[in-house]
């Protein structure tokens, strides 16, 4: 079976990466590499990681997402995770995974509003 594709789109100052529903490990590893390359190539300020299609977040997937956010941080960008499904949030918490201090929001729309703005400049909540 072929691995599912990862959509990487540049929107103004932000990179929007949409994860497929149930990616295998090699697709998840490719996400990290492609995302970091695109961050530098497009000279964007932030990354929005859209998890709204994702059906499960196991320990490997969660660790890679959290590491990617750290790496983006080292490169000077901010990561916002958007759209996690309730069933995924419940299950990931019961499994014991966390995403560190990565900012999370309910929807991609909300993430794009916040993306590219310095954190202290965000007033509307």
């Amino acid at each position, binding site marked *: 079976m072929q691995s599912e594709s990862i959509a990487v789109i540049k929107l103004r100052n932000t990179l929007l990466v949409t994860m497929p529903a149930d990616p295998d*490990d090699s697709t998840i590893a490719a996400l990290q590499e492609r995302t970091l390359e695109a961050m530098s190539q497009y000279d964007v300020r932030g990354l929005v990681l859209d998890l709204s299609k994702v*059906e*499960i977040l196991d320990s*490997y997937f969660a660790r890679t997402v959290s590491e990617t956010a750290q790496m983006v941080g080292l490169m000077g960008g901010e990561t916002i995770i958007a759209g996690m499904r309730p069933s995924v949030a419940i299950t990931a918490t019961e*499994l014991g*995974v966390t995403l560190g201090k990565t900012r999370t929001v309910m929807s991609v729309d909300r993430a794009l509003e916040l993306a590219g703005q310095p954190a202290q400049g965000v007033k509307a909540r």
Partner: protein
Amino acid sequence: MNVLGHGEVKITVESDIAVARRAVREVAMQIGFGPTEVARIVTAASELSRNVHKYAGSGVMQWHAIENGSNGGLELRFEDHGPGIADVSEALREGFTTGGGLGMGLPGAKRLMDEMEIQSALGQGTKVVVRKWRRQ
């Protein structure tokens, strides 16, 4: 406890973990589990098949649709002939790992399922059985 339907997925390469997840998702939905229960079962299956691949290299996952009176459920069995677990109670401890992972595989899968049994012998392999019932 009656066994209704069953099937198996051989875990030999990393991408078989995703194959096992898809098989478990399909049967869990057929049995009638809701979305959150399906996510729990599929996540546990992912952690346990990853353990098979990571520690033993290869093995097999078998699924069985089970019944107990009027209650239905799903049983998953993961079997390998890998190095085995030296201390099962330690392996179930939070954060314990010998594989460079986060050590949440076994204890996490146990939390996500209703029942878990582990048989392991050093040098012979490991068998993990988990069950989820539609009504606990």
